[in-house]
């Protein structure tokens, strides 16, 4: 299943500074929970604790699936479909 993963707002620093990652996931049943573990194992270069805390993303990172807050879509239980876009955005605080 092809999906696009995006990391922005500084979260891209966790994945070697690259914002967009088109990925092809094996099999068909992919929940966001499973995706998070996959990202941790396959994309995160160092300091995984800056991405995950427990079984969810760490405080300060928002997850948006197809530009919609994942909270409206079932969070960890959301099942990905072909061509989904999952955006991890770190909240900025500078001014």
């Amino acid at each position, binding site marked *: 299943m092809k999906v696009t993963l995006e990391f922005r707002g500084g979260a891209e620093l966790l994945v070697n500074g690259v914002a967009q990652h088109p990925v092809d996931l094996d099999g068909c049943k992919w929940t966001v929970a499973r995706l998070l573990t996959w990202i941790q194992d396959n994309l995160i270069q160092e300091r995984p604790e*800056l991405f995950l805390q427990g079984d969810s993303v760490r*405080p300060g990172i928002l997850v948006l699936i197809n*530009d919609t807050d994942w909270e409206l879509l079932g969070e960890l239980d959301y099942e990905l479909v072909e061509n989904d876009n999952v955006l991890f955005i770190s909240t*900025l605080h500078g*001014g």
Partner: protein
Amino acid sequence: MGDRVKVEDVNVIREGAGERKDEKEREKNGEKMAKKRERLIEELRKKESENQDLQQKLEKREEDVQAILAKLIQDPTNHIIPDKHQHPLNHREVARYSRQLILPEFGPEGQRKLSSTSVLIVGCGGLGCPAAIYLAAAGVGRLGLIDYDTVELNNLHRQILHTEGRVGVAKAVSIALSVKALNSHVELVPYEVVLTSQVALTIISKYDIVLDCTDNVATRYLLNDACVLGNKPLVSGSALRYEGQLTVYHHNGGPCFRCLHPKPPPPETVTNCSDGGVLGVVPGMIGCLQALEAIKLASGLGTPLSRKLLLFDALQGTFRTVKLRGGRSDCEVCGETPTITKLIDYEQFCGAAATDKEKGVQLLEADKRVTVEEYRDVRVKDTPHLLIDVRLPVELEICALPNCINIPLKQLGKPNSIAVIEEKLSSVRTKSIYCVCRRGNDSQLAVKQLESTLSEHGCQIKDIIGGLTAWANKIDPTLPVY
């Protein structure tokens, strides 16, 4: 200077006296002199009038400064500000705001609402400057301006209402002066205070809309909770590097900051403008949009950016608006059974200070650190050693000490970095390593890192206290500080 009477002219006048054949020439010279005189007199008059104008401007400026300073609030615990009331637009206002008055959706009604609205801008920096100037230009009724800080030279690339001449002046006063010069009819209330849990509710209660233009997590939580408790909409903007974010919190059933972020981020994941950098236009864009959202809220125009988050990416040139959750019923401050019913200690809650100022950290024991003076002696005596600069390459382009090797902190533990260090140590025939960075924080982390990776080599590894900033301040003032 070009009109000064030349020496030859004077000589001509002297020699010409009594000599007939020079009569014509004398006449000619006389005419020339008279013309010159006239010109000079005219010039003088012009300069005098210019001088008078400047004098008047200066006096007006001085009056403005005094007026702003008279309003400066340093103790906000019980300051009194009368309510803003709507009034019919006068001729001056009609003329001044005509181009927005003829917009059917805004119109005189929108203008009247805006001119009776008071907006509090918290943070007079990269976001606060553009927000303040556009709100003032549009004719907002009152602007409260909070900042505890003073203007620094490194602010001016993005904090565009401050000036070279006002370095060292309170930012709230500096913004107020620029705003007054654009629109003298906006009521200005500058506050030179730190927004604390003690004063936040008192100040916020006097305003209709609050703009979060701050630069740190603790103040963002404080401002959010204060706006929920005081029931004010919060227009929140932020910017870093090439990205900006914007949303309206606590408005019309939409979420508050805490609904999105019940827990604060780990402090080490938060980057400020001083460390991460920021292109000035980026907060400029977001600050303008904050002004826009405030104008929409004040006048009832359009749809406020509530339950939506706007993401601006300067490098891609994109604006993207994503859909957010509504207010959470279990939110600790705006939910159905709130547990936060008064303001708390936000620095403690976030584990981080309520400023974006750098704080020096002390991670190493004293014997593993040297002062810049001690390190100067090492260089003067030519003691064999290896100097590792652990900053990013772009920072070495700004300034660096000669004969250092550059290995950024993040690369320091990598095998090829270790190989480079080992090779250098053997070619210089030393076991002495000094680590340096910008301010002396990362260099301590570097020492710790190298101590573990080079443990078998028996090296003496130290860091330079205060980094290149201290070196520039105490040893070599020709080195630029950034």
